[in-house]
């Protein structure tokens, strides 16, 4: 409630106040005409852009404030009512002088012809409502390079960036055939956002440098004036080139601007205008003589590269300077990028240093990466060496065992190969030899029979077995075996071989079965057993060969001489009826009919003359002294028999005997005719 009352009170008061203010109108500068606001404000607010522009056609620029004043012209800050922006309006100070007007418009034209981001753009030119010549250009905020350098906050790198932009602008102007002739830090405006603009082209003129061939062309329409129209020195001491400072009328060229750029660089490096310690007159003279204090003396910390560039640009003779702004700029850019510049003859070390400087990041990264990598590698190696050792040991073990395994395998393979070969050989052999051995078997049977008949039972057995091995089906071999075992009195074996030889009809079978029944198959034989066997011989009527085999068998070697003599008498009785029992009486009869029985009976004389063919085996013995051999004898067998009689003294041979066989026999060799009847 209080608030509302206060408001009402305020309103009433303000109304009263209004009247009071109106009364004060005349005496105070606070006075005003309220009716204007009431009448026109709303209408003005309702005004459109079109109305604004329409009404501004004849009066484009507002009254402005002075922002700068030079020798020839003043610069005002005005509002362009058509575009609605603030612009800088240049006005000639003395518009009555037609030469100055000409010069003024000339500047406007030159400036307008240059369209470059680093050259201040001219918007408009002409005569204003008051018939004064003007031109408008961009209103530049910020400050001049002059002030910027003075502020210690700007680094050299920032200023060099600005300098490059100045070079760009001048380079462009030169390409358009225009030289500035008054380049100095005061004519460089730097905006708040780093925009750099070269301004004050008041001394600029067209140059013949559009075409390179006409750079020094005498016909260039060059304004060669020692001073400006208002009597001032053309250019600024310290920044003007020696040729500009010269009294001689010399054509000014792009080299002049290059000198001024060098001087600007000098200012950037030293914060001092060259030769500013001298008066204008002395400065001009010193400029002509090239006596500028070296940068190093003013600022010992300045970069050598930049000093070299600066000195080259400020060379006394134009031909010693950079031949174009582009060249100058290229060197500055080289410096910025850390490359050695053309102005300084770079040594290898300084080149390397610059390379490292401009590649700081990369070099740092590469170095750190290298170090880290190496450290990691070393660590890794240390770490793994231990494991590697173990691994190596394990590997060695594995290798060893592998080698062993391989060796074993090789051996195995070798042996397998051998085995296979052997098996193959064996197979081949068996296959090949089965036939061959079957063919060979009878040969062994023959040999076996030969030994059997020569009363060598064991050799006979050997060969018979060989024959059987070669041909297990050989009946002859089996029969031979049976016969030999019979002579050895081994009935079981003999019966076995007879059976498998399928020789069941042999007379040996019943005889041996009878023997088995009577005596069993004991190994130790007795006289009675032998005698009984002899009886069976007679019973079954066995031939001579069986009897011989048995008599000469080693199984009867256990018989003593007397037993032999007894056996001979008894056996003789089985065949021939006789009542006698005395051997000496019976000896002749036995010798006459069964001489084989006399074997190993201790007889000294054997007369076998009556026996046409008989084996002489019976003569063997220590006691034999005289032997009358049978008519027909087997040479070699008989020789052996004779040789088996160590005490032999006389031998009577049949006249039909081939005596060559017995050549080496050391006994008395006689013939039948010598034998006394």
């Amino acid at each position, binding site marked *: 409630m*209080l*608030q509302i009352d*206060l*408001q009402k009170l*305020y*309103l009433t*008061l*303000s109304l009263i*106040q209004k009247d*009071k*203010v109106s009364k*004060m109108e005349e005496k105070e*500068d*606070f006075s*005003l*005409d*309220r*009716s*204007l*606001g*009431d*009448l*026109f*404000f709303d*209408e*003005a*607010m*309702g*005004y*459109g*852009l079109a*109305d*604004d522009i329409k*009404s*501004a056609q004849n*009066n484009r620029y*507002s*009254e402005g*404030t002075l*922002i700068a004043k030079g020798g020839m012209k003043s610069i005002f800050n005005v*509002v362009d*009512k058509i575009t*609605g*922006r*603030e612009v800088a309006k240049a006005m000639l100070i003395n518009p009555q002088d037609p030469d100055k007007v000409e010069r003024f418009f000339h500047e406007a034209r030159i400036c307008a012809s240059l369209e470059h981001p680093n050259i201040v753009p001219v918007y408009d030119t002409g005569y204003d409502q008051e018939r004064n010549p003007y031109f408008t250009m961009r209103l530049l*905020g910020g400050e001049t390079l002059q002030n910027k350098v003075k502020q210690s906050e700007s680094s050299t790198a920032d200023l060099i960036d600005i300098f490059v932009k100045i070079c760009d602008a001048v380079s462009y102007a030169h390409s358009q055939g225009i030289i500035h002739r008054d380049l100095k830090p005061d004519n460089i405006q730097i905006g708040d956002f780093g925009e750099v603009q070269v301004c004050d082209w008041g001394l600029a003129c067209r140059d013949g440098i559009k075409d390179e061939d006409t750079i020094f062309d005498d016909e260039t329409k060059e304004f060669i004036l020692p001073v400006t129209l208002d009597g001032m020195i053309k250019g600024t001491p310290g920044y003007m080139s020696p040729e500009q400072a010269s009294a001689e009328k010399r054509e000014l060229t792009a080299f002049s601007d290059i000198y001024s750029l060098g001087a600007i660089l000098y200012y950037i490096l030293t914060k001092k205008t060259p030769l500013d310690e001298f008066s204008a007159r002395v400065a001009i003279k010193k400029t002509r003589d090239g006596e500028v204090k070296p940068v190093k003396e003013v600022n010992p910390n300045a970069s050598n590269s930049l000093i070299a560039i600066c000195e080259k640009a400020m060379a006394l003779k134009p031909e010693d300077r950079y031949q174009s702004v582009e060249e100058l700029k290229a060197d500055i850019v080289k410096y910025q990028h850390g490359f050695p510049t053309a102005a300084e003859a770079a040594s290898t070390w300084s080149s390397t240093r610059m390379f490292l400087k401009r590649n700081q990041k990369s070099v740092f990264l590469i170095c750190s990466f290298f170090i880290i990598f190496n450290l990691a590698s070393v660590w890794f190696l240390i770490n793994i060496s231990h494991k590697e050792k173990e691994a190596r040991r394990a590997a060695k073990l594995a290798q060893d065992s592998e080698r062993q395994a391989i060796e074993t395998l090789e051996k195995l393979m070798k042996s397998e190969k051998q085995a296979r070969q052997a098996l193959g050989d064996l197979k081949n052999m068996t296959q090949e030899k089965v036939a061959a051995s079957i063919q060979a078997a009878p040969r062994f049977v023959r040999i076996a029979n030969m030994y059997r008949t020569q009363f060598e039972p064991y050799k006979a057995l050997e060969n018979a077995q060989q024959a059987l091995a070669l041909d297990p089906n050989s009946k002859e071999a089996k029969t031979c075996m049976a016969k030999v075992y019979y002579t050895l009195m081994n009935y079981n074996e003999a019966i076995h071989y007879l059976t498998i030889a399928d020789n069941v009809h042999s007379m040996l079978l019943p005889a041996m079965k009878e023997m088995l029944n009577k005596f069993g198959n004991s190994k130790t034989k007795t006289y009675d057993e032998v005698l009984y066997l002899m009886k069976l011989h007679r019973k079954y009527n066995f031939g001579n060969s069986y009897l011989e085999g048995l008599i000469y068998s080693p199984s009867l070697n256990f018989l003593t001489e007397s037993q032999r003599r007894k056996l001979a008498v008894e056996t003789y009785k089985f065949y021939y009826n006789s009542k006698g029992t005395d051997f000496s009486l019976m000896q002749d009869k036995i010798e006459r009919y069964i001489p084989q029985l006399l074997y190993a009976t201790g007889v000294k004389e054997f007369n076998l003359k009556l026996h046409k063919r008989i084996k002489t085996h019976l003569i063997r013995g220590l006691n034999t002294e005289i032997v009358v051999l049978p008519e027909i004898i087997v040479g070699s067998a008989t020789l052996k028999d004779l040789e088996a009689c160590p005490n032999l003294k006389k031998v009577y041979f049949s006249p039909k005997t081939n005596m060559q066989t017995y050549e080496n026999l050391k006994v008395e060799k006689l013939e039948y005719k010598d034998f006394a009847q």
Partner: protein
Amino acid sequence: MTDFTPTRVTLLQRLCNNEKDDISWGEFNEAYKRYIYLLIRGMNIDHHDAEDLTQTSLLAIWENIGNFTYSPDSCKFRTWLYRIVRNKVIDHIRKANAKKNRKEDIPHVDTYSSPEVYDIAEKEWRAHVSDKAYNNIKTKFSENVLKCFDMSMKGKSTTKIHEATGISEQTIYVYKQRVKDALLQEIRLLNDKWG
């Protein structure tokens, strides 16, 4: 067209960017001094105190202008300015009360922020800007032209002006129109520039 975005913001911009120099201070005074005085007077302050308060307010605004973020859509400069002036006035009343050692109701802050009060401030602004504009264009016109315009402003018809000055009615009409065009343009310009 009232929400037309002003394009001429140079003074404000420069002020906000803290680019203070003598030119800006002069322009700043020209633009706002009378307006501030009118506002203070409107708050029932006598002329003598109002002059002092105008000066202190101007200085306060000058010092604090960097804190004002220029944005024509969100807050007009003169609204921001009004708040500073209002605070100065409240301060002044407090001090005056303390001196006299008597307890008087201090106007609430909202008192000076209500729509009605804002309307009054707006009205003062219009009067201020329009008057300035007229003074600015006066130099561009001849005496006769201005005379015709002034007379028409006082409500005199074209015929009466013709009778008083002898200028033809057709010409009077053209004169009036020329001044009016210039005035409207200037009002608009100043409003955009200072507002």
